[in-house]
């Protein structure tokens, strides 16, 4: 595994870290155990199925908006797989699905997306404290300094927990990206900034987002390492995150990984891993079909259960503004 130091990447911006070769086999020397590879596959299929179910909800008008994670599963699932239980994740809306992998029931995720939990946030702006998944903000980049503060706290509190923060390519332009990476570098916080570069922010191509050749090299500005990885190669993402996390648990600091998901003509991370697993005889056609069928069934069932849940009542509008509903809100609740 080629990992650049704080000034390596820029001289080799074309060094894209990959685990799977063009022939779908593991690049030699990368020992990722079979269980992990299988788990990665299942997680991606599960996420894709859930995503498809939600996209259908959007098409039928049930959801006004939805941030599909299609083709981004290699980054999302690869990274989540590399974390330990006590680690925390700070996602953007497009990684709403990371909670599935961290033990959240699909129906609870669907309930938040369908506005059947607190009903406060639009779809994909989810929160799962039980899974140590932070609340998603609607302000691009705003969550990044939170990840730094959280990671620093875990360090000074002498735990070995680390923090994973996701971001898109567009978010690299935000002021908080700058603050977060800078604070992360100075505070030596065990936080990973994992940038999914899908080449575009709404309609704006990366070339209009920044003039830097890669996003990974932005790390240098903060004295932290930057790494470019193939985001459609879930094993490569897993490896990169795992390597960072192992170091970060024992005193290592912040890092920026750019995972490109727009680069290769064959951009489907699930198809790639499937071919690899079949080639290595870790997956049969039958098994693949079963995994897929189960995932689709789970997603549909989850959506149905969630649809059946009660919507939050008017009274709940006034909860959670403060720890205790204050008098002025009691009066707005009861007399308006």
């Amino acid at each position, binding site marked *: 595994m080629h990992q650049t130091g704080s000034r390596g990447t820029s001289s080799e911006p074309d060094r894209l870290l990959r685990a799977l070769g063009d022939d779908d086999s593991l690049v030699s020397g990368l020992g990722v155990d079979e269980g992990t590879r299988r788990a990665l596959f299942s997680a991606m299929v599960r996420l894709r199925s859930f995503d498809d179910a939600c996209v259908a909800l959007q098409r039928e008008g049930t959801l006004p908006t939805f941030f599909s994670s299609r083709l981004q599963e290699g980054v999302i699932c690869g990274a989540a797989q590399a974390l330990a239980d006590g680690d925390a994740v700070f996602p953007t809306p497009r990684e709403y699905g990371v909670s599935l992998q961290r033990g959240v029931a699909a129906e609870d995720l669907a309930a938040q997306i369908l506005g059947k939990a607190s009903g406060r946030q639009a779809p994909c702006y989810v929160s799962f404290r039980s899974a140590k998944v932070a609340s998603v903000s609607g*302000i691009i980049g705003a969550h990044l300094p939170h990840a730094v503060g959280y990671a620093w706290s875990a360090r000074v509190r002498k735990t070995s927990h680390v923090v994973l923060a996701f971001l898109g390519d567009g978010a690299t332009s935000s002021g*908080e990206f700058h603050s977060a990476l800078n604070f992360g570098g100075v505070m030596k916080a065990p936080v990973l900034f994992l940038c999914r570069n899908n080449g575009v922010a709404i309609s704006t191509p990366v070339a209009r987002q920044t003039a830097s050749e890669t996003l990974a090299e932005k790390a240098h500005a903060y004295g932290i390492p930057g790494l470019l990885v193939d985001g459609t190669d879930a094993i490569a993402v897993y490896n990169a995150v795992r390597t960072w996390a192992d170091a970060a648990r024992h005193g290592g600091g912040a890092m920026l990984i750019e995972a490109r998901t727009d680069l290769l003509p064959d951009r489907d991370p699930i198809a790639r891993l499937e071919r690899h697993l079949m080639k290595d005889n870790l997956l049969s056609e039958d098994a693949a079909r079963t995994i897929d069928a189960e995932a689709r069934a789970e997603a549909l069932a989850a959506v149905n259960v969630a649809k059946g849940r009660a919507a939050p009542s008017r009274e709940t*509008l006034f909860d959670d503004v403060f720890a205790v509903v204050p008098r002025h809100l009691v009066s707005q609740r009861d007399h*308006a």
Partner: protein
Amino acid sequence: MSEMNMVQAINDALRLEMRRDDRVVVLGEDVGKVGGVFRVTAGLHEEFGEDRVLDTPLSEGGIIGTAIGMALYGLVPVPEIQFADFIFPGYDQIVSELAKYRYRSGGEYSAKLVIRTPVGGGIRGGLYHSQSPEALFIHVAGLKVVCPATPYDAKGLLLASIRDPDPVLFFEPKRVYRAAKGEVPEGDYTVEIGKARIAREAVPSGRKDDRMVTVIAWGAMLYEAIAAAEEVKKKGIECEIIDLRTLWPLDIDTIVASVEKTGRVVVVHEAPRTCGFGAELVSLITERAFLHLEAPPERVTGFDTPFPYTLEMEYLPLAHRIVPALEKVAGF
């Protein structure tokens, strides 16, 4: 004249002014080739090219800060903030720089630009796609704040805003972007900044138990005020509705004249109640028309909570919440 919706009227104003004045430039996230997420800038990139219509990186501070620099040079930038909810990363540039540039430089410089941004709820956008932050700008000296309710006013006020010598925040009520339709002149015209419009005149019936109420509203809530007025008319309450159009500087004369006539006031706005613009309106009315007031002015507003998602129709000050307030002030 042709019938337009508000998106078309704003687009028409931008195109007209960009043709007339080559200092006018448009910039923002996704305003170029795709013409903005609401299509308000559609076709401008094609017509005026990328030196007049710029897709920017994702940084509201950068958008407004860069626009200020263009204005200092002598251009007239019209930056778009994709949703008003995203204006806060650029808030410092607006309140510390834009609003204060003329003052702090002793009049040597001015930074003339118009920030366009969609405001308001009712589109199932939730917490970060629904807010109405006008009070946070009206409190800051040095800014003009405009919010049209009709396509006619949208075009005329935008043209006036671009030609005004001061920085203007131009809030577009996105809930009625397409729903508000009306006749819009094809050529050049302006609607004066700082002048309200009587959207509905109160005509006293002459009956003894007749009650009149002045309703102050703007943007998408104007239509709710009108609906509420129709509703209470049956009960003998006659509303005079003022569409503010410009929130600051305020057309206090029109308001005071109406309150002197009606003696009762209801202010409607989407933003949270506390320290909202309604508080300023109530204070000014109390100061200027105290002896004419038959009842304490009422505010019908968003609640003092963040903007919710599923319950937005409970949160917004829609007609069903305006009606009881009208009845209350009428019955005081």
